[in-house]
């Protein structure tokens, strides 16, 4: 087992290296003068030359790449060109928004998708099953950005005066600025604490402020549903087909033949094997979520990783583009790696190969 994990980690290293190199070159070739973007359109050539020398842009590309690799290894992501703040600080501020959104979306996807899939498999070929699969097909075909707009329209406009009304954008009611939880408890802030406190739901929870907690959750529902719909549909389909597959196997027939009721047959005997492929799909969906976050954040005006990245590209802020793309790609690789490892824990058969 340990050997498998180590081998899997080793194969990830060239990919991670490739990611750093690709990100470096992509950020270099984004059109537009980085200096003019940083110092304003009217910066003179001498000022620019001095600035480029200071940040190291005057060196030949291989030297720059080597320096960049060194910086990345020491977790130094540089300073944002347009915002004049360290990229790592921006990450601590904005990654939590995206993480919160992605976790909420994944929550929606798994806790609705899996039961729906089980239900459909349970009632195989019934109208429930057919209807559910039609729904799942429509779900995977839905453009995230359009779904977001429609949800806003339904829950913030049509149902405005009912109890179902949900806020259309933002993370909290305007004017509500809760203190970070560590201040409430008299602790001093550090990077990790700030990171946690930037997840509004968690922050409110840690201070036991239920009104703010509820407000933050309400703001999170629409974006999470918008982002979670596609993975939900995929997970529901996967659960259904995998469960149907397992239900046809001999050991399930044995369980039924010995007189076991249908519920324990499905929930205890079949589910254990049926969930194996579903774990992979859940893990892989997380990457799609990170990509979809760009669209969802734009629609629901959330300042997360996606929105920041998009703004940075428009502003030619190459350090932010580098840093954020790198973090997303590395997170993606690590999640896939973790999925693989979890899978081998769950299914010992894979380890042999």
């Amino acid at each position, binding site marked *: 087992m340990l050997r498998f994990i180590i081998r899997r980690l080793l194969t990830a290293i060239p990919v991670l290296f490739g990611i750093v190199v690709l990100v470096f070159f992509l950020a270099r070739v984004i059109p537009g003068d980085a200096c003019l973007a940083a110092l304003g359109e009217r910066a003179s050539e001498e000022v620019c030359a001095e600035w480029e020398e200071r940040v190291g842009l005057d060196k030949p590309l291989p030297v720059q790449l080597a320096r960049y690799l060194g910086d990345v290894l020491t977790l130094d992501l540089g300073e944002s060109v347009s915002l004049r703040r360290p990229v790592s600080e921006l990450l601590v501020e904005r990654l939590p928004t995206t993480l919160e959104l992605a976790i909420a979306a994944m929550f929606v996807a798994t806790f609705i998708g899996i039961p729906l899939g089980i239900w459909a498999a349970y009632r195989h070929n019934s109208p429930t099953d057919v209807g559910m699969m039609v729904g799942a097909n*429509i779900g995977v075909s839905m*453009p995230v950005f*359009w779904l977001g*707009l429609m949800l806003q329209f339904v829950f913030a406009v049509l149902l405005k005066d009912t109890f179902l009304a949900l806020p259309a954008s933002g993370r909290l009611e305007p004017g509500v600025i809760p203190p970070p939880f560590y201040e409430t408890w008299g602790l001093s802030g550090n990077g990790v604490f700030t990171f946690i406190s930037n997840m509004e739901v968690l922050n409110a929870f840690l201070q036991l402020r239920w009104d703010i907690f509820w407000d933050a959750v309400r703001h999170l529902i629409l974006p999470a549903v918008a982002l979670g719909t596609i993975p939900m549909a995929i997970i529901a389909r996967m659960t259904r087909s995998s469960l149907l597959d397992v239900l046809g196997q001999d050991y399930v027939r044995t369980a039924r033949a010995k007189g076991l009721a249908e519920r324990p047959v499905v929930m205890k005997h079949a589910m254990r094997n049926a969930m194996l492929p579903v774990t992979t799909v859940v893990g892989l969906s997380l990457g799609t979520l990170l*990509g979809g976050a760009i*669209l969802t954040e734009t629609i629901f005006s959330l300042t997360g990783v996606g929105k920041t990245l998009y703004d940075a590209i428009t502003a030619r802020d190459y350090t932010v583009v580098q840093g954020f*793309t790198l973090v997303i790609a590395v997170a993606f690789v690590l999640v896939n790696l973790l999925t693989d490892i979890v899978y081998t824990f769950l299914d010992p058969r894979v380890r042999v190969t």
Partner: protein
Amino acid sequence: MIPERTPEGVDIPAELRQGPGHDTSEVVPTPRADRIGALTAARSRGLWRDAFRETFSKTSARVGAVILLFLLVLAVFAPLIAPYGPNEVLLGEGVKPRQPPCIHLFGCPDDEPQHLLGVDGNGRDFFSRVVYGARISLLAGLAAVTFSILIGTAIGLVAGYYGRWVDNGLMRVMDVLLAFPALLLAIVIVTVMGKGLFNAVIAISIVSIPVYARVVRASVLTVREQEFVAADLALGAGSLRVLWHRILPNCLTPLVVQGTLGVATAVLEVAALSFLGLGIQPPTAEWGSMLAAERNQVFTSPHLVVAPGIMIMLNVLAFNLIGDGFRDALDPRLNR
């Protein structure tokens, strides 16, 4: 002349019976043998026709085909279906920007011009724009997949056939491309190359190359080990010939499945890029950019947001349904 020997109780189709005046100068098979030949021919029409029949014998794939046909008709006959040009500004003649739909059938006064989906923010007939949007969406989706299949197949063939360091190098590059969320990488590539439909299509195809490369490589690895390939090589066939005539035809099934499903993804991504303002530029009618133009009006004129989204969804749905059907019919692992 061979006497007609029709077995009792068996109905032989008229065209198989030997009538008088039939040319008997050649060897004439007995009707029975002929019939058996016809039967076996009916049973096996070759992999592709069988797969096609099996695919479209399912309701879901048929629904997909009907939707696709509908969109194709919209795209091809757009000038005939749309009452106005896609960029025709109608302001002035009693038309207000973002006017709600006016349909004569549903009680809109007859003296007012009919606008099935209302008028957009620039005073253009929205229905006409939605109809013309089908052209871009279909073309862009198909173009992106065609391009990535071409490149991806080439990479997969070379990697799978030559193996060793070629394989290792190429597939590691593919791994790196796959390590990015597709849309994110596409956005960065479009930024590098510049906005526009063509660049968006290229970006989306680059992003999906690894998928096809992997699929093709996997089938090459299995086909390469088979005896007919070894036989061909033993006969002195060159690598190119073996790749083109022996290996490629055996990789087509997974490519067709993956390609059809890939069009669905590509259509979604083209729309997403246009929505972000990176794809096709206004005033061209495209569903994603139409959504982007009117997205802040969702609270006041929702009719301008509903239609383009439904069209994108239908387009994606059509290819998903057909692709799933192909997979069920062609993927040997699923044939139980």
